[in-house]
């Protein structure tokens, strides 16, 4: 009897232990990572700097034979010429380029994209800009460039890019003589990014310039959150002028409504209640809101997917410049490196509540919450090297305006590379068994 009871107790104990100590089979593992982002090259005559959040951020030069990465060892890194691939690990670096005494503009270093829309620039005699198409992959890339202008859809250009290289397409070759361009860059294969610089001049006189930030997809609702507005100062005859460039790439034309959101109120300007545009033709409309605020936002709603941007003329140090403000996707938690930029960030939403953490150059972190309705403006302190959106209200959009000695720039507040969460694959010979 004693042995029987011992055996039963042992059995029960084993069952208890097995249930308790079960080392469960490791479930599906997931890998979260940010694809490396690509910063544009510095074209001839320009100077470029990348704002970083950490000196340990790794990078590699695109044209270098080795794939070895190096730390920047700086928070604002000057780029002499090359395209750089940055392992930003979630903090989007910002590239700031300028031509001394002429213009300045900023763009986000971003991850590869299969489709990018650039609503901006011109192909007329004033244009000096270009479309930079970069292949940061290790194999050849095939890229289609589709241009639209006020004269409709242009013949498509296909370009092949060697591994780890880039190509500069002069804008005046895309639709020679046309004034209003919208360009779609489609990556057929390869790790492709594109950047557009819209620089203009008349003879030796510079008319300004800016980066045209890309839009990923055409959409029926677009929000351009930050459009600079310089009200007429005393002694000035004119204030900023704003022009909406819009395109519906679908087969049919569309009707759109434009709403201006500013601290002076939200309204639909006259003539923008239901405006018709033709399919495939780039249209431009002048917007002249009578508002006193230094920035405003627009919301465009359409019955067909559209792409749009607003160009604004600004005056910097009594010189003319222009800024391309582009739509942004709804704000999500993210981080951006802004060392040396001190931007003004404009939020727009019906109800704004955004919690932001700032990291200063000395490493100190400060959290603040921006609240408001319709539109809110937040000037980031000078000594901030990065900020992180910790929490945000729904359907909030944000853009940043940066003023510098050389010019004015716009940055969409959106992550340069999205956090990818994929299942960690497992090595298992079972895959070779039918």
């Amino acid at each position: 009897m004693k042995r029987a009871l011992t055996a039963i107790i042992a059995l029960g104990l084993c069952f208890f232990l097995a249930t308790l100590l079960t080392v469960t089979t490791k479930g599906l593992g997931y890998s979260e990572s940010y694809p490396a982002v690509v910063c544009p090259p510095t074209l001839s005559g320009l100077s470029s700097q990348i704002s970083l959040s950490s000196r340990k951020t790794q990078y590699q030069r695109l044209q270098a034979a080795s794939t070895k990465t190096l730390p920047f060892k700086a928070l604002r890194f000057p780029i002499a010429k090359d395209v750089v691939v940055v392992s930003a690990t979630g903090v989007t670096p910002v590239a700031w380029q300028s031509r001394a005494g002429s213009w300045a503009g900023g763009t986000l270093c971003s991850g590869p994209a299969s489709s990018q829309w650039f609503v901006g620039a011109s192909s007329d005699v004033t244009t000096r800009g270009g479309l930079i198409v970069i292949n940061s992959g290790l194999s050849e890339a095939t890229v289609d460039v589709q241009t639209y202008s006020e004269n409709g859809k242009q013949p498509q250009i296909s370009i092949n890019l060697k591994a780890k290289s880039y190509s500069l397409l002069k804008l005046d070759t895309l639709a020679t003589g046309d004034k209003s361009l919208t360009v779609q860059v489609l990556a057929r294969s390869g790790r492709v990014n594109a950047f557009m610089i819209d620089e203009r001049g008349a003879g030796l006189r510079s008319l300004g310039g800016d980066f045209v930030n890309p839009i990923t997809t055409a959409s029926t609702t677009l929000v351009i959150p930050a459009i600079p507005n310089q009200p007429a100062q005393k002694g000035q005859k004119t204030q900023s002028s704003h022009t909406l460039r819009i395109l519906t790439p679908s087969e049919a034309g569309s009707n759109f409504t434009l709403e201006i959101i500013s601290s002076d109120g939200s309204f639909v300007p006259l003539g923008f209640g239901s405006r018709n545009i033709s399919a495939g033709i780039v249209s431009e409309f002048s917007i002249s809101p009578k508002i006193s605020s230094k920035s405003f936002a627009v919301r465009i709603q359409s019955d067909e997917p559209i792409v749009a941007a607003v160009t604004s003329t600004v005056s910097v140090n009594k010189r003319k410049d222009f800024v391309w403000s582009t739509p942004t996707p709804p704000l999500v938690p993210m981080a951006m490196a802004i060392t040396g930029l001190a931007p003004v960030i404009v939020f727009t939403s019906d109800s704004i509540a955004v919690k932001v953490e700032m990291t200063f150059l000395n490493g100190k972190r400060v959290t603040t919450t921006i609240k408001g309705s319709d539109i809110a403006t937040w000037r980031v302190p000078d000594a901030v090297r990065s900020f992180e959106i910790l929490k945000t209200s729904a359907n909030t959009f944000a853009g940043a305006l940066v003023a510098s000695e050389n010019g004015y720039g716009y940055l969409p507040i959106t992550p340069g590379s999205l956090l990818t969460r994929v299942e960690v694959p497992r090595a298992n010979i079972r895959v070779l068994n039918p």
Partner: protein
Amino acid sequence: MAAQAGLDRHRVSAIIVTHDGQVWLPKTVAALTSQTRAIDHLVAVDTDSHDTSRQLLKSARIPTISAARDCGFGQAISIGVASLSKPRTEVIEWIWLIHDDCAPAPTALEFLLQAIDDRPQVAMVGPKLLGWHDQTHLLEVGISIAGNGARWTGLETLEYDQGQRDGVHDVLSVSTAGALIRRDIFEEIGGFDKNLSLFRDDVDFGWRARVAGHTVIAATSAVVYHAQAAATERRSIDVDGAFLHRPLLLDRRNAAYVLLANSSWWVIPWLCIQLLGSAMARSIGYLLAKLPGYAGDELLAVTTLFIKPGVIIKARKDRKANRYVSSRVVAAYIPPRWSQFRLFSAGFFESIRLRLFSDSSSQSSVLESVEDDDLLVPATGPPRFFMLRKPEVIGFLLLAVLTLIASRNRLGSLIGGALPASPSGARDLWRSYFESWHQVGMGSSSASPLWIALLAILASLLFGKVPLLLTLIFLTAPLAMMWSALTLLRKLTRNAWISVPASFIYAISPVAIAAVNSGRLATVITLILAPLIPILINNWRRIHLHSWRQIFTGVLLVALLYSFTLVAFLICLGLVAFALVGDYQELSSDRPVFLDRLYKRLVLLVAPFILTAPYSFEALLIPSRFLSEPGLSIPGGVAHVVLFGNPGGEGSLPWWLISPLLIILVLALFSTSKAKEIALYGTGFLSVALLLSALSIATHGDAGRARVWTGTFLVGATLAAISAGVVILDRLRAVLVSSNFHYRHILAALLLFITALYSILCLGWSVTAGATSPVQSSRSTVMPAFLSIERDTKTLVLRNVGSRSAKSIQYYISRGQDISLGEPDVAPRQTKEIVLAAQALIDGSGISSSKTFADYGIKYVFVKLPFDRNIIRTIDGLGGFTRVSATSTGVVWRVAGVTGRLIFVSNDGVRELLDSGEVGARTTVTGPGKVLLTESFDRSWQIFADGYRLDREKSEQGLPLFIATQSGEISLIHDGTIRRAWLSFEIITWTLVLVLTAPAGRRKREISEKELA
């Protein structure tokens, strides 16, 4: 007597040769003196006997001549003949050769003379020789010699004399025991050869007589009883030339001598080969029978003759003088080459037939019949369907039908679960077993497990059809399980209505169903073999009572289990450790018995481990092998499923189908019978299974951890539960019948009800949902055909794998084709760099993934559809991968850069792909540089150039890198010396254990005279 002889025209002189023959001599002398035809003259030649032979002869008043102790039989006869008076011309003089161990029947001489009366050409006539003790045992009716030197009588072993050989036969020769030889011919051809002091002198004499133009006959009407004392080692062999005094050695030597001295010259080379070959074959046979002395005799006999060819040359010269006809005249008397084999095989199959279908009627005696019984009852045959009333027949038929229905999707090439695809032929299995390098993943030099060789042997019996073999194994497994369980349970109960259903339940136990459904080859084999172990080692506690032969038979059985799964080693280890503790407590004062038990237990534990080396030895470095099974790593079940004897996992019974295993074990623990002890073992197995079910291991090419499959332990628990149940029921039936209604009745009814319910539900599930279990017949493949063309190409295959509810992305490196049986067991772990690159490939961060793949020789990436389209787009956009195909089966990308199996990197950094075979290669390098082999690093990789071995290094990626100093042809090899050494070791150890397992042969002196007859 003399008067009668005077009437005869024959005169017979009997010569009796004695040598330590006191045992048989009285009967011999008595037989001689009682002949119906009196002997005319009798003389004895004693070769210095050490016993009372000489006194016996003296008391019988037989004139005796003394001869030296080393005097041979022929020489003694010559002495006897010399002592006879001069031949008389009016009569025919005969000499009658009598051994001291042979006794002629009273009419022997009379019939011998009758036989030759009208045959003047006869020079030698012999009687029918019968056994000394068993006088119905036919020993000889004339003799001959086979081409391999064997003494040929043409009789079956222990042939019973019922007159079937009677008559007068023309033969090559007759035994000298009782042979009657014409004196003039004897003297004419020189008597017996002096080189043949004993054995085969008779064949030689007959042969010589034949070629001298005479006849030799055997007259079976004359009978002589012969003890064959010298041949059966009943007395020492002291004759001159009997090296080491060994009769077998002398016999074989003389046999070879006779053949070589008498045969035609042109058959001598063939005879030499035949003699040597048969000597070697017999030596092996004797070694297997554990008779090394006899084995040595065989080889020594031939060798001693071959190294002295002068003896043969002289003998042939002597024979030439008396040869009047060609040696070929004896050809008719030499047995055909295959007659020995035919005789042996007939005897062998007869013994098997008797073993399988013993004739029970022959065991019954006529005395047992009751003559008065049923004399008036009309004779009838067995009733119709009599066989179907036997529980065994019902059980096996029912199981066969149900198995066939449940296996309706398994009638073809099986695949699925833990079972990889079968190679098409046994040759592939052999190659996989023998080769030192396996083209799996990045390559592996792991030793193949022994079960591959076992399957290859079985497949060879089916003309190399491995798929057919596996189908048969899984189809017949339930029947084999039931048979083996029934064999065991019959030893626990005589009631077939208990043992048969119990063995049926064993065959449909949760573990049996799960093992078959999920392709667990090892568990299936364990289920079949496990019941045989307690049959063989039936006294585990007092193991010292078992013979070493039984222990080594057990070693073979356990080694078979080890070869399929090393879980069996863990079980053995536990059992031995548990038993040794008991032995130590029980036998603290009896050291010899303790040591005896210790040795036998350790042999049972360790010897199979050595037999399965080197795979088992490698397990010491890779401990997860002790818990793994052959095939793919498929997770087992959780503790609450295991508790009821269900190993869980794919293909197992659903959790709600609870077997009565646990209840039976618990009930048996409270039994007062032997069932309690059995249940203790069962509980032990179940407890260990429960504990192990909490563990997860990574093994067999799976980087992820999978829950341990506890099937092998549950085989023990199931067998114990069923055995305990049988013991209880066997006793309980009588108790229940004789007692009033009691709680035991309720318990028994409840138990039977649960068991019956389980059986019905289980069978129902098996033939419905169970039929769609993972193991199915299928011919689908993973790899597209165009990737299989380049056999030396590595392809990274990505696929969604797993059960319907939990699929996950998994990958592995393919060598152009799907995996096959045995490959998962030697699959290497994945290189860390490849793991990271594959991970980065999926999450889109891998800008250098293609470079990593190229570094490791991976030429293609293949995504098997269905697969996440987003990931396909990610790979498209990642760079370094060029899409080369997209079909309904999947998408293929080519990895950028020069890559392949063998890459030459010149000193200026230019990469060039070299021709490469599957393992070895012969190709040319164009200049000095480095040759990179994209296989896992192994010391056996070597490259030779101009006969010199190139220096080998480890590349940054841990791959073998060779430094080529100049241009020219190079040879890449994987040196398989170590593998060959291990194979030799395996052959030696298995042969040794097989010899120790085989029934030991007995020396002739150890065989009782009764058996010898």
